[in-house]
């Protein structure tokens, strides 16, 4: 006998974003929408074991929630104007149909996600609100995912909703003149959620690792709602390709595995295929962008059966392109690695040279230099660079990996010293 609460929870989580978005449009209030869904949840766990889970759960939940909200307004004897607006949406059979057809030009979820990612909200608030309202995650889950206390997260959400209401943030898809930058903001939020999950360490809460799947889920919704936005599709491709490596990223002893050392048999082929498909679709629109470029880089790794089969020249070229779209010394560092792999370590070192002061506190610059110096048998310099990298490490897994490398170099140095 399946637990009715579990069944209802699963369905509600799945439909939360869609229903919430519509209710906010109808009632113009985040809190009203949230309470209404809560109320309908209580009814669901009561009714569904008897009547069965509805064929169209979203419609059922929306209708039930609307009814409860209107009842709530009646009880509170809210001002006449508000009630007049609401009374025009009387419950009847046609209405269920109407709610879902309503999304003619724009799914309510688009309105919702643009509102959650409005630049007037602090970035932490954008992340929390997106996960709560579109993802349907509970406050407790989001708190655990971002490693803060539940009360902190609850307060964050309260403040964010208050700001939306009090500062006059409109509930809509932004007009054309700011649409491009606002889409970029939304994509940024989704990618931040993904990266938060990607950086989860071994001992972390499961929900933290789940952030990757949640981000992919949100990415799918966005790509569906905005099929003409190649960067939205590119982001989805990128996340799928990164996520495909998740089973290979940690060794059996809990250490991070570099790309070259990963067991490629553990890469998820169906995720790779899906990612590649989306990338092709995005690129067909011929509007390049940073997410498509990063996805293209990931796709080259994904399609190389072994590290030796990697097309490094193409990757170097793509990092060059990425540097135009998203200039940063870290991008240039990655280009240096690709160039080193394609042409030789000395060429990589040349590219890194002007980056050294900017990236002096970035451990991966030092470790990259160390590796390239090692290949050129400049062992003393390589040791120095590894030591610098180890000084900057942030956790024991990194330290152990880099210490191992340092030991190897010092061994070679020792042998060399005897010549």
């Amino acid at each position: 006998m399946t637990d009715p609460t579990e069944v209802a929870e699963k369905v509600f989580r799945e439909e939360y974003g869609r229903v919430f978005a519509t209710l906010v449009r109808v009632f113009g209030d985040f809190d009203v929408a949230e309470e209404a869904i809560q109320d309908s949840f209580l009814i669901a766990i009561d009714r569904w074991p008897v009547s069965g889970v509805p064929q169209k759960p979203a419609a059922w939940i929306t209708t039930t929630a609307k009814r409860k909200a209107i009842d709530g307004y009646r009880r509170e004897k809210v001002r006449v104007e508000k009630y007049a607006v609401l009374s025009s949406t009387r419950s009847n059979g046609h209405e269920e149909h109407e709610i879902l057809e309503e999304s003619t030009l724009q799914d309510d979820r688009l309105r919702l996600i643009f509102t959650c990612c409005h630049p007037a909200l602090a970035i932490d608030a954008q992340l929390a609100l997106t996960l709560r309202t579109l993802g349907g995650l509970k406050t407790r889950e989001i708190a655990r995912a971002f490693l803060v206390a539940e009360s902190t997260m609850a307060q964050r959400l309260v403040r964010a909703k208050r700001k939306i209401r009090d500062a006059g943030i409109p509930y809509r898809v932004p007009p054309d003149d700011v649409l491009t930058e606002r889409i970029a903001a939304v994509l940024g939020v989704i990618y931040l959620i993904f990266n938060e999950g990607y950086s989860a360490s071994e001992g972390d809460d499961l929900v933290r690792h789940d952030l990757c799947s949640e981000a992919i889920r949100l990415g799918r919704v966005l790509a569906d709602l905005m099929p003409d936005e190649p960067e939205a599709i590119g982001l989805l491709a990128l996340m799928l390709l990164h996520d495909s490596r998740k089973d290979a990223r940690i060794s059996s002893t809990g250490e991070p595995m570099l790309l070259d050392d990963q067991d490629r048999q553990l890469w998820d082929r169906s995720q790779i295929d899906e990612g590649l498909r989306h990338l092709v679709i995005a690129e067909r629109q011929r509007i390049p962008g940073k997410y498509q470029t990063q996805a293209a880089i990931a796709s080259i790794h994904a399609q190389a059966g072994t590290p030796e089969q990697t097309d490094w020249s193409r990757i170097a070229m793509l990092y060059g392109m990425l540097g135009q779209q998203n200039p940063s010394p870290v991008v240039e560092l990655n280009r240096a690695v690709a160039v080193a792999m394609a042409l030789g370590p000395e060429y990589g070192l040349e590219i890194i040279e002007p980056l050294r002061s900017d990236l002096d506190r970035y451990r991966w610059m030092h470790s990259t230099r160390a590796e390239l110096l090692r290949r050129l048998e400049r062992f003393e310099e390589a040791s120095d660079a590894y030591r610098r990298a180890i000084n900057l490490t942030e956790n024991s897994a990194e330290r152990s990996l880099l210490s191992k490398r340092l030991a190897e170099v010092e061994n070679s140095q020792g042998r060399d010293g005897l010549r």
Partner: protein
Amino acid sequence: MGEFMAGWFKFDEEIRSSVKVLAGDGLEPTSTATTVRYKDGAPVTSDGPFAETKEQLGGYYLIDVENLDEAIKVAGTIPNLPMGGSVEVRPVQVFEQ
């Protein structure tokens, strides 16, 4: 200096013709400011702005627009911005009867 003020006057004309401006003024510099606070239960006056900051409040516009996005758009056109200034956008309280 004349050119600077001429730029502001021109902007002021434009904004009043394109946006519903309920009020707007430039303020004299903070050197002309006087702050009143309570001390021991009675108002006390002191020289200077209420907060000593690098940035000085230079003026305000009270506008009536649809939503925050519209207000942000207007804020983005204010001529102090290219000179390194900033504009704070805040809603006026509306009390329901």
